[in-house]
């Protein structure tokens, strides 16, 4: 097994909540990330999934030290990034980059695309002068844009193109780890596929590791090697993709997977397994944090917090009853969804045509 490029160890981030204007005192803390540990191995994609507000993005920002932690460690290539001073941290940033969710907010509207891409190269003194220009052109080509785009401003591009620019910026300094913070959530479905495929191609080409934050389980299934499911600041289940989708052990994961819409009326819908809203991270429930919404809740869940334990090699779950809870039918049905042969043939024909069109487009661009 390859050594981990990213090691997160008991990471905690609490946002203090203060009250009082003159003498402010802390009245509580939003436990955005509460004691999570995971690893991203070299060259793999670890997906971090969960509902809005569960702490996914906070985790992503902590990993890059765009936020300061409350406690815990983040090691990138064996270096604890929270122990670095400002100078060393800036140097270390070469190895770790980020792609943002909103392609409209992630590019400085006052800088040309060429300047946006040149910025990391200048900061890390990778290239200058002619070499810099050539590298910028190369980056644009790598993400499927044309060299002449360098002179344009972000508002002249579509959302998908902007996201490609964001990807090119992240790639500029040849990082080893890229945190993808919901990189396709803000895009149309047709553009999502392009961007996801681009990310996969780049991973194969440059041996990148991704921490892929998402809430779209279909995209996650497509791109990830392993998946970590977060709920209210904690990881509740972490395993490889195949196991997770076929044999989810945590009731929350099961509920999430049941909720995936399937374009097949024969498949029973699994909505409504969990009800209500996510409890406030300001005052999370006692014991297991999921107990307020869990269909299998028992007394022990309310009192005792379940350990994040190894269920099988490479499969960790935080549930007292992980062995006993059966995988619901709604999840199983999604695994063996029967699509007719005719439909499968049509789908295949469509995909070939799409691929051909894509190649044609790429050829015209280059």
């Amino acid at each position, binding site marked *: 097994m390859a050594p981990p490029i990213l090691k997160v160890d008991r990471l905690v981030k609490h946002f203090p909540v203060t009250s009082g204007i003159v003498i402010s005192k802390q009245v509580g803390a939003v436990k955005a990330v509460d004691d999570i540990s995971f690893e991203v191995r070299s060259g793999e994609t670890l997906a971090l999934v969960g509902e809005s507000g569960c702490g996914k993005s906070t985790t992503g*920002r902590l990993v*890059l030290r*765009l936020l300061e932690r409350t406690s815990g460690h983040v090691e990138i290539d064996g270096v604890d990034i929270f122990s670095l001073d400002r100078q060393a*941290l*800036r*140097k270390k*940033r*070469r190895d*770790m*980059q*980020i792609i*943002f*969710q*909103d392609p*409209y*907010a*992630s*590019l*400085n*509207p*006052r*800088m*040309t695309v*060429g*300047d946006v891409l*040149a*910025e*990391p190269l200048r*900061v*890390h003194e990778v290239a200058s002068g002619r070499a*810099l*220009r050539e590298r*910028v*052109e190369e980056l644009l080509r790598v993400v499927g844009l044309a*060299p*002449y785009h*360098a*002179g344009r*401003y972000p*508002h002249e591009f579509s959302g998908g193109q902007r996201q490609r620019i*964001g990807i090119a*910026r992240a790639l500029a300094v040849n990082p080893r780890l890229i945190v993808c913070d919901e990189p396709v959530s803000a895009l149309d479905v047709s553009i999502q596929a392009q961007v996801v495929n681009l990310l996969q191609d780049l991973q194969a080409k440059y041996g990148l590791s991704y921490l892929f934050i998402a809430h779209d389980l279909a995209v996650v299934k497509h791109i990830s090697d392993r998946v970590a499911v977060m709920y209210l600041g904690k990881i509740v289940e972490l395993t490889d993709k195949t196991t997770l989708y076929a044999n989810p052990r945590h009731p929350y994961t099961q509920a999430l997977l049941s909720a995936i819409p399937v374009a097949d009326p024969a498949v029973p819908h699994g909505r409504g397994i969990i009800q209500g809203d996510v409890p406030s991270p300001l005052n999370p429930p006692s014991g297991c944090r999921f107990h307020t919404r869990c269909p299998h809740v028992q007394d022990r869940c309310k009192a005792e917090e379940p350990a994040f334990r190894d269920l099988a090699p490479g499969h960790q779950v935080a549930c007292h009853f992980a062995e006993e809870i059966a995988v619901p039918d709604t999840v199983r049905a999604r695994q063996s969804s029967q699509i007719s042969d005719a439909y499968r043939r049509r789908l295949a024909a469509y995909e070939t045509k799409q691929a051909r069109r894509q190649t044609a487009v790429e050829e015209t661009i280059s």
Partner: protein
Amino acid sequence: MTAVVAAPAAAAVKAPGRRSVVRRLARDPAALLASVFLAAVVLAALLAPWIAPYDPFYTDPSKGMRPPFEDAAYFFGTDAQGRDILSRLLYGTRLTLLMGLVALTMGGILGTAVGIVAAFYRRVDGLLMRVMDVLLSFPAILFGLAIAAITGPGLSPIIIALAIATVPLLARISRSSALVIMQQDYIDAARAVGLVDGAIIWRYLLPNCLSSIFVFSTLRFGQIILIGAALSFLGLGAQPPTAELGTMAANGRDFLFFAPHIATIPSLTIFAIVLAFNVLGDALRDILDPRLRY
């Protein structure tokens, strides 16, 4: 490509939509009128030494208090000392605009710096903004009185007073727009790239705050001129015989009943300039509002 990477930052900052700003200004008749008027005023003020028909300080009591619009030689008439009002108006506008510009630049740069620093380094935010609140609680007239009491009346104490009174206003405006920009992902992106704080502020934060700062400055320029003229009118500013619009209005005050033009002409000039700046500022706010642009 070559030109783009080599292009200086200043050009990059102003290029997008600059032409469209001019075009959109031209489409608004009031704003167009205000801009044309202001351009003419600035031009006349700049060219005062060449276009003024007389020496603004030359007195001739025999020609005192001529009414306006009667004699082509003295278009706006003469004041009590027989000085040509048109010439004094040109020189006075020059001084008034200069006073406003210097005060606004000084106060604006300082205020923007305070606001941006407060937004970027939240730890000093509370302290800086409370200091600004203290400054804000004194009216500009009071600063003028206080400073003039120390240094004696003159143009410099007025400029300093106006600058000080402008600092907290611009600090607030720039802070509030900088706080919005700080929430944008591109600030995090700049951090993730490894830029130092200074570069983030200078290239990412400031350029994106500039439009609201610029709009407010335009509006503030009108107010500064008004307050400055008021201070001069009170006798704290430019001293006679210096031609300054507020001082000229003050000089004419004694003859308001039998030669009203001596006070009203400079007053109306102040009014027109301030109004034009307000109209222009309003139009620029509509045009440059980032919510309408991107």
